[in-house]
């Protein structure tokens, strides 16, 4: 602790309590809703005619609603909550403007809710990963902006002037989301650029959201927790700066697929960038490995397990991105389930795992009491391991089969059915996650009510009693 600023860690943690609870509860509800809808979507591969008379649950609406719930409903608010806490801890200051971030969390969740309902009733914008209608987009943007405001105010109040590596990643993430989200929404929904430019902007947004923004927050978080949990300093500060730099320099230019109906220079630049993307992926793998391995700390199903699994998934997902961008592979893999599996690995295998680890670490600290069901944490990681492997690997294999069979729709069907079992496991896990957060919030609320009742019922002091 800094002697010039003698604020206790417990006080910093407590200052994060209300905003983080708001963010985490919403995130865990969205995770359950998203996985449930993903399961509903997957039912179409078991019984195509199931929702033939029910437009709300038709595959084309449920599938994007599920994807967006996982990305915007779960990943982003969970990431933002962790980010706020890391900022407060690194600044050695209480969270600034906590009420603003509480409002922001609710605006964000409201936006996700409106967006999801919008997609289900047929009001989707039709742009991949940007399906939320305009009203929802405005709410998300405002919510994010307010969280960023809180984070920057907390950052400004720091007593340690020197920046920690996580700061770079998380600060870049704070700037990058409003930039890409407003650009994509303004160009596509407000100004409605013409024809061929629309998919280019959509690809640029998708890649930057899923592969750059999630990487910035996820890796930034991992670089905070890995040294902390392994009890060793982060490996190589300049090497980390190099990884950060190459990540944003090359990662931002990926995403335009080979053979897309756009001017040929666009996919060529993207292909070059994806090839170079191997540099940050390997750099991050080396930093994480050198920090965590050999420290002698065994994770025992705790947060460290989640963070390690998430970091490994990041490396794998990055390698898959690079492999599938190369023209020879892309000819087989594009438009197949491979791409979907890759997205899910990035969303749940990488970011989701890091978010679980972070939340399980932070939650007892901000609440000032242990988790109500610590056993669930150890069980949850098993469900995650099995669930992600069973969900993602069949999709990847199914994609290859589908591509080799020249898009014969039945080629991947069996693999799709297997992958639904992974979804069930992930859904069970998300319930455990929710129960821990919910019971904790409930206990805290009950305690608050008890305090209020006690204060009301307390006998009046003698001085106040009228003679």
């Amino acid at each position, binding site marked *: 602790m800094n002697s010039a600023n003698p604020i206790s860690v417990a006080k910093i943690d407590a200052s994060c309590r209300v905003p983080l609870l708001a963010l985490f509860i919403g995130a865990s509800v969205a995770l359950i809703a998203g996985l449930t809808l993903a399961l509903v979507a997957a039912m179409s591969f078991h019984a195509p005619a199931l929702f*033939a008379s029910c437009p709300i649950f038709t595959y084309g609406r449920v599938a994007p609603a599920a994807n967006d719930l996982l990305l915007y409903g779960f990943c982003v608010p969970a990431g933002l909550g962790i980010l706020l806490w890391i900022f407060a801890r690194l600044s050695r200051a209480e969270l600034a403007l906590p009420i603003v971030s509480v409002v922001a969390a609710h605006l964000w969740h409201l936006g996700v809710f409106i967006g999801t309902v919008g997609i289900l009733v047929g009001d989707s914008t039709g742009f991949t990963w940007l399906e939320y209608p305009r009203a929802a987009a405005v709410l998300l943007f405002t919510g994010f902006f307010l969280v960023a405001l809180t984070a920057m105010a907390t950052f400004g109040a720091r007593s340690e002037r020197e920046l920690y590596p996580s700061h770079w990643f998380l600060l870049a993430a704070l700037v990058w989301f409003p930039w890409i989200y407003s650009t994509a929404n303004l160009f596509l929904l407000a100004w409605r650029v013409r024809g061929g430019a629309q998919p280019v*902007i959509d690809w640029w947004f998708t890649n930057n959201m899923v592969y750059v923004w999630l990487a910035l927050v996820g890796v930034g978080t991992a670089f905070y927790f890995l040294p902390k949990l392994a009890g060793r300093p982060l490996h190589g500060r300049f090497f980390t700066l190099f990884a950060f730099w190459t990540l944003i320099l090359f990662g931002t230019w990926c995403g335009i697929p080979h053979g897309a109906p756009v001017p040929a220079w666009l996919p060529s630049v993207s292909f070059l960038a994806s090839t170079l993307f191997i540099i940050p992926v390997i750099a991050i793998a080396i930093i994480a490995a050198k920090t965590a391995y050999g420290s002698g700390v065994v994770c025992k199903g705790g947060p460290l397990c989640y963070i390690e699994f998430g970091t490994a998934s990041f490396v794998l997902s990055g390698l898959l991105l690079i492999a599938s961008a190369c023209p020879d592979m892309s000819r087989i893999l594009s438009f197949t389930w491979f791409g979907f599996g890759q997205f899910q690995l990035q969303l749940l295998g990488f970011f989701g795992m890091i978010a679980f680890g972070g939340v399980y670490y932070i939650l007892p600290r901000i609440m000032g009491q242990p988790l109500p069901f610590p056993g669930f944490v150890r069980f949850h990681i098993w469900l995650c391991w099995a669930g992600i492997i069973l969900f993602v690997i069949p999709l990847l294999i199914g994609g290859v089969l589908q591509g080799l069979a020249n898009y014969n729709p039945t080629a991947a069907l069996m693999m799709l059915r297997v992958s639904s079992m992974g979804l069930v496991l992930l859904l069970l896990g998300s319930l455990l996650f929710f129960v821990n957060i919910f019971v904790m919030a409930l206990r805290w609320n009950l305690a608050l009510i008890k305090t209020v009742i006690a204060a009301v019922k307390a006998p009046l002091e003698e001085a106040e009693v009228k003679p």
Partner: protein
Amino acid sequence: MKNGALVFLAALIALGGSWVGFVLAPTLQLGGEKQTVVLNGTDVYPIQRTGDATVGLQVYRANGCANCHTEQVRQDGFACEVTLTAAGKNPTVVSNLIASLKLDGLTHEQAEALSDKITAAGGKSETRLVATGGDIDRGWGIRQSVAADYLYDYPVQLGILRAGPDLANIGFRHPDMKWQLQHLYAPKSVSAHSSMPPFRYLFEVRKVADSGPSADALDLPKEFAPAEGSEVVPTEAARQLAAYLLSLRANVPLYEAPFTPVTTAKP
């Protein structure tokens, strides 16, 4: 890193670079796109959709069809094909010659040499340029899709996944409105192995009126038909969607996607 501001500024420039490259530049390059002229012709392309087909794109969007269907044909390259247009004075020699040779999948040089041989034998031939690739072999299109194909679309529904077939030329492949509507109502009735969900909510099942069945009613095979005395009639949305599907045809040669149309080759 004492210099936080420097890291921040450098990051901003690195991030902004991709914005200039992948948002600003394509908007400037493609955003001002205009109709073009068909290669070796005078027709303009593309023609803006009208009426039902325009609204149909919105039905397509609202139901998320692009989650399973792409609207883009990819191409690996070109090949030449030599067609005999006249056998000349010595038909047996020419027919023996062409029977012994490969006529398609040729490079330009091979095609020239072949056409020289045919000319030497007294016949007349025509060399055609054809696009090649998996999507084209599968019959999903004649040429690759290019930016011009989507000029008037909003939103452009390129699609991300082919859980079903590509639809860039569905209006050309299945030009029958009745087929489209029946396929939407009961995919398995026209394509036995289809895994597409039936879109029954776009249709109305109602009692046949006393004046006789509606002219719009679907003519369904027995196992897909409703109970006796009922009929299946497409709703407005189903008709609009089908009209949109019929409007999907990217089958003219363009400067950036050339090929020789078949119509000119009449032996």
